[in-house]
């Protein structure tokens, strides 16, 4: 299994190619949407490049759980409910949801993912 640093470097180069950003902008703490300017279509591109770079398969919804965020079971008045947060934690253990859980506006969810989350996500997909 590659070291965390090796994974980070590959993720970094994937994000540089997909988003046209410089390497030094892609710090572990940078958020994909807020800091690196990723838009929804970019996720399609990023997923493909990650699959190719790491030889893994990523299903739709793994990086962006649209089904949870649009379900009345998990969302009320534009906010993710406690059950919803629990479901998100289960589905996306690679994301730190503590801050989001304090004020879980659905519309803010898209801005959560950081570069470090992507690295953790990739690591969960690599053979142990």
């Amino acid at each position, binding site marked *: 299994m590659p070291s965390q640093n090796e994974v980070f470097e590959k993720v970094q180069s994937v994000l540089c*190619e*997909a988003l*046209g950003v410089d390497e030094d902008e892609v710090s572990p703490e940078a958020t994909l949407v807020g800091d690196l300017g990723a838009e929804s*279509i*970019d996720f*399609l*591109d990023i997923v*493909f490049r990650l699959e190719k770079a790491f030889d893994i398969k990523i299903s*739709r919804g793994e990086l962006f759980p649209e089904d949870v965020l649009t379900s009345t079971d998990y969302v009320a008045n534009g906010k993710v409910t406690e059950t919803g947060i629990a479901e998100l934690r289960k589905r996306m253990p690679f994301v730190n949801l503590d801050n989001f859980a304090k004020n879980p506006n659905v519309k803010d969810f898209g801005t959560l993912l950081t570069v470090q989350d992507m690295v953790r996500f990739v690591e969960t997909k690599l053979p142990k």
Partner: protein
Amino acid sequence: MRWIWIDRFEEFESGKRAVAIKNVSLAEEHLHDHFPGRPVMPNSLITEGIAQTGGLLVGEYHAFEKKVVLAKLPKAVFHFPVVPGDTLRYETTVDYIKDDGAMVTAVARVGDKVQAELEVVFAHLSDDDRTKSLFEPKNFVFTLKLLGVFDVGRKQDGSRLTEPAGLLKLEEELKAAGT
């Protein structure tokens, strides 16, 4: 599609690769404005031609049942200006075709010189009334024939490419209706 920026398909391998050519001529009006006294084929229109070559490649794979639109150019590099008399050759190769979108890598050549290198991401639009009126399948019937796709096209198994059943049916309906 009424806005056609390729002249003919030279190769068409379903779901894999397509090659189209574009002849650049001073008879094209836009070259007289771009630029007065120095006609240059706009790189934006070279991009459009490449997107059409790759877009038809992706669309055909889905038998034109998905609405394929240009969504993003992760890469677009142009090496020299293209002038009247040049023939551009757009070579597009599928990187992936998924449910929600696709990507092709493309190279444009003039003779044996690489003029442009692009990556083109397409999205598949959802089916709503607005997109329905934007994508009339009848446009594809005529465009594909006009561009010679079925003269050179091959399916993935190597057999000859034929019109998607849905389009054939539509064509018959149009004939019957006298349009």
